[in-house]
């Protein structure tokens, strides 16, 4: 059995935030142990499904084009969160994001060249060569090289904390219960999106029908344990990133390929064959962000996107082939939908479509009149066979209910008092910055920035507790360097 005593810093969770914390703590001279719930091949939580991170930069870099200033970045945060953010933490994260790619590179993370490939986000985001799993492989190689002790199949189920001071964790390693102590702890164990029971507490029985796009290992046990111990929570159990994905996707771990981009090119009906929302309201990513919830509100949490031949080839290729038929009736029959209602819905829609100039790149003038709900852009008649349909289900990517932290990544207790040696990074504290909504790549940014701060602070706390706890909050600024 592993000897898990004598470590300075314990990191719980082996995703991007956890590894950033572990490597930073090691940079600070601490002896580090990292507990990862998954087996080695499935390590790294949702980070294995990521692809890029969003970074501020004032001039083109090797891996991003143009410029993306602090103010523009912050405006984007305000816009996706509807103002539900903490300006101080958000701006600090944005500023610290400028050094992320360089720091990651020192640990072997490779990036695609700017403007390479078919990417739409080459200005605001830096893309990992080979995606998130490749990034994490590089991190884990580096962790091994610098002597971080990593334990797989190690699920932390509870923490012991007295008077705001972390004592130890209870961890199941290969199913066997162990206690691991350390002088400081960084919790980077993600959200609770794969804990269906907890989701049902928040959403009701409908959560049974959600698909989880990410790792099946994010059960939220560390989060729950800390909240029960009196830590202050942030955001809400129903907040998170939920999108409409292909209804045939796996229950867990389907990742990026479950994406469906065809909603705006046709209409969407529920299992009664009725439309329920304006499919042409806005662009991806706003459309992307709201449709998961829209489908979740429908009976049985399903929807069906109907398109015709004109739409084929206008959206990203899909994992599963669409259902296909020469008549709408046959298509509805294949999907076991009420045939007459679907035919009536599509007829009513076709009759309401006004003539316009179709342009998927702008909010064009193709719309319906007199239809409820309206389709306000990209409305073309569904009249060119063969017809196609994709089933939709809500796909939960991550949850925002988390631990409130300060700018030194210290976990705060109810009433605002800070804990002594408990730090948080990644999805478990992402709600501090994202009260709702999502902007591509910002999760990895927050994980990296707070992972680095948490690791540095935890090392300081473990190695030199007096000066660390006395240090002013500005230390955090230093810690991001």
């Amino acid at each position, binding site marked *: 059995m592993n000897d898990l005593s004598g470590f300075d810093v314990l990191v719980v969770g082996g995703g991007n935030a956890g590894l950033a914390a572990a490597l930073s703590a090691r940079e600070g001279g601490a002896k580090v142990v990292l507990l990862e719930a998954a087996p080695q*091949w*499935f390590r790294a939580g949702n980070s*294995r*499904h990521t*692809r890029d991170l969003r970074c501020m930069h004032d001039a083109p870099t090797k891996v991003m084009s143009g410029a993306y200033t602090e103010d523009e970045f912050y405006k984007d945060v305000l816009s996706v969160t509807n103002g539900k953010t903490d300006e101080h933490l958000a701006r600090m994260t944005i500023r610290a994001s400028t050094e992320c790619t360089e720091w990651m590179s020192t640990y072997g993370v*490779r990036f*695609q*060249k700017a403007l*390479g*490939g*078919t990417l739409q986000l080459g200005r605001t985001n830096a*893309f*990992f*060569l*080979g*995606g*998130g*799993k*490749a990034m994490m*492989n590089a991190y884990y*190689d580096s962790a091994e090289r610098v002597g971080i002790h990593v334990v797989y199949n190690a699920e932390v189920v509870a923490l012991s904390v007295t008077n705001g001071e972390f004592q130890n964790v209870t961890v199941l390693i290969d199913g066997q219960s162990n206690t691991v102590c350390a002088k400081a702890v960084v919790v980077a164990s993600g959200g609770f999106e794969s804990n269906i029971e907890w989701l049902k507490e928040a959403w009701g029985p409908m959560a049974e029908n959600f698909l989880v796009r990410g790792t099946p290992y994010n059960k939220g046990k560390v989060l729950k344990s800390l909240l029960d111990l009196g830590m202050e929570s942030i955001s809400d159990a129903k907040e998170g990133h939920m999108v409409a994905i292909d209804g045939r996707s*796996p229950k867990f*771990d389907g*990742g*990026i*390929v479950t*994406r469906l981009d065809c909603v705006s090119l046709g209409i969407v009906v529920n299992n009664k064959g009725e439309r329920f929302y304006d499919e042409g309201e806005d662009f991806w990513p706003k459309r992307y962000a709201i449709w998961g919830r829209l489908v979740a509100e429908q009976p049985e949490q399903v929807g069906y996107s109907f398109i015709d031949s004109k739409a084929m*080839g*206008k*959206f*990203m*290729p*899909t*994992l*599963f*082939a669409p259902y296909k038929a020469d008549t709408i009736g046959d298509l509805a029959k294949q999907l076991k939908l009420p045939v007459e209602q679907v035919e009536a819905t599509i007829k009513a829609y076709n009759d309401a479509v006004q003539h316009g100039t179709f342009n*998927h790149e702008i909010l064009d003038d193709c719309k319906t009149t007199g239809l409820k709900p309206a389709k306000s852009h990209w409305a073309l008649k569904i009249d060119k066979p063969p017809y196609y349909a994709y089933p939709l289900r809500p796909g939960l990517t991550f949850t925002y209910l988390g631990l409130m932290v300060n700018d030194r990544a210290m976990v705060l207790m109810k009433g605002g008092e800070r804990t002594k040696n408990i730090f948080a990074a990644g999805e478990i504290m992402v709600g501090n910055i994202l009260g709702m909504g999502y902007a591509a790549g910002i999760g990895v940014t927050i994980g990296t920035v707070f992972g680095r701060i948490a690791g540095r602070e935890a090392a300081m706390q473990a190695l030199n507790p007096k000066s660390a706890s006395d240090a002013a909050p500005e230390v955090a600024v230093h810690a991001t360097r």
Partner: protein
Amino acid sequence: MLPVELLDEGQHLMAVCNSCRYCEGFCAVWQAMETRTVFEEKDLNYLSNLCHNCSECYYSCQYSTPHEFALNPPKTFAKLRVYTYELYAWPGPLAKAFHRNGLKVTLLMVAILVAVMTCASYILGGSLFMTVHDGNFYKIVPHAVMSIAFAVSGSFSALALLIGFARFWCNVGESYSTLANPKALITAAKDIFTLVNLDNGGDGCSYPTEKSSESLKWFHHSTFYGFLSCFIATTLGAFYYFVLGQHGPPAFTSLPVIFGTVGGVGLIIGPIGLWVMMQRRNEEIVDKSQDGMDLSFIVLLVAISISGLLLLVLRQSAVMGSLLLIHLSFVMTLFLTMPYGRFVHGIYRSGALLKWSLERSRKPKAKASS
């Protein structure tokens, strides 16, 4: 014909990969994939030959086995490749040789050739164990016999490979007229000569294990350029003989000997390096049924080089005669098995790189990327 299960496996791979695209920075396969939305057998045939087996994608893949999507791109492409080798083989009935082209068959062939040549030598009154003081091979096997035997077997090989290439070219949907594109030819040649797809911007690739390594590239270079150097040596030898009329054995400082020696050394280091890597490789991502083909090719190349270099050193001793027959038997075996063994990968991969180079020159990019 591609077995249904393998077609399904290839199409499943492409369905997942084309809706993910995280690997697009790695190599030509993924960029070529992104310009397509439909993956028929011909597309799989093309893409599998474009794959250089660097395996970066496998380790980066969030969907590789044991994920329920069970992807294994290097292995799937390897299985597809060997089917394309059979599909394009000429003459058709010899296609099955790819599965029988193991080490035993190769060595048996060498033995038969040695026996036949020895008998023929005795019957024709040759002087097999005589010491030839000037090192002149042709006193053992007359030049005319050697030239005719190798001209016939070499031409057969060349013809078989040419027809194979033509079959590949048509099968993947190109026409002969598209070959007349000097710019594309130059780009493809650059990709072939530099192995840019095994390079990853200088980091190397994930073969034989996950750790980045440039050894596959360099051992392949050693093999490839060693082969090329030997080919040049042979061509120069023929030129000296027929055009310059130098009928004696070439001097140690002559160009054919220099090219042959450099090439021979390359053909020892390269294939042995590739063999060592085979012993260390991750078995999960290879199609083990192709090991015999690889091993026999490696053994032949190394045996030819060693016997060839020995022949150079010992050409004035009594063993020269038997050594010569053994060397010639190895070379003859290589010639005869070339169109039905690992050698053909070079033909089809070059073809795939040429097609990729043409596709790049033809862009606009497919709409599918928007």
